[in-house]
């Protein structure tokens, strides 16, 4: 923890001491108006206030005053906070194999629904772009902070058709991302690359640039066929795990649309966090106020004495 205005700390302590002195002075003046009683020890016994409650009240009060002094000095602490200017590109596989129905209703529909969930869960301010790829990659939605626009763009994804150029998609996504800041790529595919540049090389390069690729394997190896082709629809988990590993991301497999949405929703939630120094003055002041209020209320209920 550091302080924005460290010189305020002794000033605040002096001010607190001055206020304390004044309150004591005022209390002495109030003594004249105190209720004269035969034996205050009897009153204390009658109220049966536990000593630990009084000690707790005093401790709470001291801690609250200390927090107030710290709040005045402008404390700064490092915390994981939602990133407001991060960027994420979602690469959605639209190759012919995504028409398979081993995930209900189809792999393609499941991927689209999951991408939609990811966008909805992303913190405001995160810029999102969408790349569709099959035999080649194309930008469906450039980076935008208008999440509603990105969701609308998902409707423009082409129907499943053609080969799978994962390397091209990753390269295009990398070009869309800004040079700095918090950046991620989310790859939604069944993982069988059969055209374009080598995806492993691109993933390696992205890792060097600190751009993690989160790969989501869509589909199963249940022996389902690609509709209209007679070819078996496959899922290359090994390749997807390798792309994620070399780039610093993670791999997850979604065997149905619901699970896929869950994974991507979680990813959307964690994408936007970054360690930052934040101003904790308000939090400290609120804690101090709560402490004082709590000690007052506890004192009100149980009765305090000195």
């Amino acid at each position, binding site marked *: 923890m550091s302080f924005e205005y460290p010189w305020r700390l002794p000033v605040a302590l002096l001010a607190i001491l001055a206020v304390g002195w004044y309150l004591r002075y005022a209390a002495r003046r109030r003594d004249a108006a105190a209720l004269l009683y*035969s034996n205050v020890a*009897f009153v204390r016994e009658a109220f049966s206030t536990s000593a630990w409650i009084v000690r707790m009240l005093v401790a709470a009060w001291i801690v609250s005053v200390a927090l107030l002094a710290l709040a005045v000095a402008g404390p700064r602490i490092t915390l994981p906070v939602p990133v407001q200017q991060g960027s994420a590109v979602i690469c959605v596989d639209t190759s012919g194999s995504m028409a398979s129905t081993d995930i209900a209703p189809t792999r393609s529909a499941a991927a689209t629904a999951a991408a939609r969930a990811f966008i909805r869960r992303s913190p405001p301010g995160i810029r999102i772009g969408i790349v569709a790829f099959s035999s080649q990659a194309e930008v469906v939605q450039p980076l935008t902070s208008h999440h509603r626009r990105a969701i609308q763009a998902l409707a423009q994804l082409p129907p499943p058709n053609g080969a799978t150029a994962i390397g091209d998609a990753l390269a295009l996504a990398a070009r869309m991302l800004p040079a700095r800041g918090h950046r991620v790529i989310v790859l939604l595919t069944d993982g069988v690359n059969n055209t374009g540049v080598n995806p492993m090389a691109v993933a390696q390069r992205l890792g060097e640039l600190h751009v993690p690729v989160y790969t989501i394997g869509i589909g199963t190896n249940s022996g389902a066929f690609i509709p209209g082709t007679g070819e078996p629809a496959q899922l290359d988990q090994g390749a997807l795990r390798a792309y994620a590993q070399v780039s610093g991301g993670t791999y997850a497999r979604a065997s149905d649309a619901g699970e896929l949405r869950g994974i991507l929703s979680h990813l959307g939630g964690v994408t936007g966090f970054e360690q930052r120094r934040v101003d904790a003055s308000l939090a400290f002041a609120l804690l101090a106020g709560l402490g004082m209020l709590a000690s007052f209320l506890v004192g009100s209920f149980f009765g305090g004495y000195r």
Partner: protein
Amino acid sequence: MPATDRGRRLRNALLTGKRRPRLFGSGSPSGLRGDGYEFAELRAYVAGDDPRRIDWAATARSGALQTRVVLEDVALTMAAIVDTSASMRVGRSTSLLDCALDVLRAWFEAVESEDRAMQITARGAVPDIRLRGRAAATAAFAFHASASEQFDLWNHLRIARAILPAGSALLLITDGYDFTEEETVPDGDAMLADLGRRYDMTCLVARDPWYEGLPLRGFVRFKDAQSGRLLDAYIGARQRRAYVEAVARREARLIERLEQARWRAAPLLEGAGPASLYAAFGVGHLVQS
């Protein structure tokens, strides 16, 4: 300070009370050196008189049985101890001490010509124990302990035990906080019992001014009348209830303790001092406000 009707009834109650020592024959029941039976008068013998009291010389002269009446049969020794500690200087409209002084006045109003009257102080009896009658009562009532004089209940009781002849009537007016100093007076109960055996003991326990309930709510600062110590407390419904219960419990326990020691004990109500005294002797009714 003329004797009032209720004063006379109070005196009569003391004279005929069961606590009054019965004097038989000769000898001295007094612990005071030289203070034996003192001749008062001769009267005609009545059935029940102790034969040892018959004055045979007077009988021979008059031709009828004559009984010697000693002063102890017709005169009282009335003493009082008033708690003058700072804890008695609190109260609602009047202080407990002012109320105690009203009681003291009523007590000494019962004194008649041959009675002794005195107030027990830290330095002994005021006035001297040999003084009798209304003059003694007036002097006893006029004494006021100086504010700087520390009141020590147990010390006063020890002095009374050393001074007073057996059968004396001793009135104690206190708020009772000194009775709880068990650590300083480990044999307190034995001493109270001893006093109860030797004297006609009466204690009026000054009732807490806020017996019915504390007058304040919320954050209240108390100041100890004795030590000046402060106590900040919050008074809510729970505290008010606890306080009323504790005050009633304390008064009841104190009275029970004194009664066990054969004392006559009763509460002293603010603004009704003399009435509290007469009620304790059964010569009046006390209307509790």
